[in-house]
């Protein structure tokens, strides 16, 4: 009797188990549905012309590090940017003549113009070969106090506010503009005075080491004794 009960119990259990497994909804259908409804449209969208996310045109400048079939990869101060090109992209060489994509090589500096896309790449409309030296901006602004003036040359020493232990040698000439904060002209004798606080726009002098040429000087206030 007991044996019969045990046999029936196990029989009932194993009848239910395989049926239950077969009736599992199955993840395969769900995966297929996901691929059809989500992934496929996404992949198809990537193969057509990229959609710009802004109507404001943008430009990327940098050195070409990689060239693929229709993508140029640039780097600029470590920042990597991608340019997508197509048959409508215009290419211009260094002499401003129309060129072709094949003429652009890794290492070439370029200025790419176009529109930003959703994946932050540029839909390249115009690619212009550019030399870095042609776009470099060597001007810099420094503010400080005049601490020494040469009696023989037009060179004076400026102690910058950000580092008083590292003074600049600045040079002026007849083209140097000297003004006050209201943009009014100031005579050079009233400006280059020991103790005067100024803002100078300078760039490296190519002829003299550790000397900068001051293209513009803004005189800030009346003469103050130099701080030691």
């Amino acid at each position, binding site marked *: 009797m007991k044996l019969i009960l045990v046999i029936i119990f196990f029989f009932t*259990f194993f009848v239910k188990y395989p049926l239950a497994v077969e009736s599992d909804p199955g993840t395969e259908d769900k995966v297929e549905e996901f691929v059809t409804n989500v992934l496929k449209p996404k992949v198809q969208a990537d193969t057509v012309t990229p959609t710009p996310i802004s109507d404001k045109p943008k430009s990327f400048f940098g050195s070409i590090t990689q060239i693929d079939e229709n993508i140029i990869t640039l780097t600029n101060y470590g920042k990597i940017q991608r340019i997508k090109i197509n048959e409508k992209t215009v290419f211009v060489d260094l002499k401003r003549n129309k060129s072709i994509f094949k003429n652009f090589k890794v290492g070439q500096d370029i200025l790419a113009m176009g529109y930003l896309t959703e994946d932050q790449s540029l839909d390249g409309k115009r690619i212009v070969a550019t030399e870095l030296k042609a776009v*470099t901006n060597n001007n810099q602004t420094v503010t400080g106090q005049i601490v020494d003036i040469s009696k023989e040359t037009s060179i004076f020493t400026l102690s910058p506010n*950000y580092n008083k232990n590292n003074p600049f040698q600045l040079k002026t000439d007849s083209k140097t503009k000297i003004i006050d904060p209201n943009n009014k002209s100031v005579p050079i004798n009233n400006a280059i005075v020991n103790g005067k606080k100024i803002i100078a726009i300078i760039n490296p002098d190519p002829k003299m080491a550790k000397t900068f040429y001051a293209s513009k000087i803004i005189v800030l206030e009346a003469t103050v004794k130099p701080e030691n």
Partner: protein
Amino acid sequence: MIKELFLAIVLGGILGLGVTGGYLTLKQKNQNPKPPIITQPTTIPTPTISLITTNNNSSTKNLNITYPEDNLLVSKDTIDITGNTTSNSQIIINTATDSFIGQSGQEGKFTVPIKLDAGLNIVKISSIDKDGNQLDTEINITYSTAKI
């Protein structure tokens, strides 16, 4: 005999269903993860280029450029650089060939018109407050009349 048989079948069925149901529940939890949700990226808002630094007095100052955004391409050779910084500061803007001067107001806002060179302009912007503290930032603006 019949009663016992019937009882055995009923008990067996209940136990079988219970075990099977519990097994299925556990299986569904472990093997059926939710598919990843792919959403369309939202439009990237216009970035504000800003620089925050501290001076010797340990107070925080900033220089924000609200227009133009970095890497903008324009078709005119003049543009207004707008932004905000500490109040009543001298604003100096340098391109490769020229420099432009302005001043921030009481609220720290400034607008300085500048002239661009053809092609890429690396524009350096400096703000110097009354205490002589200087903040610097830089943006790229390209001036081109080519049709894009």
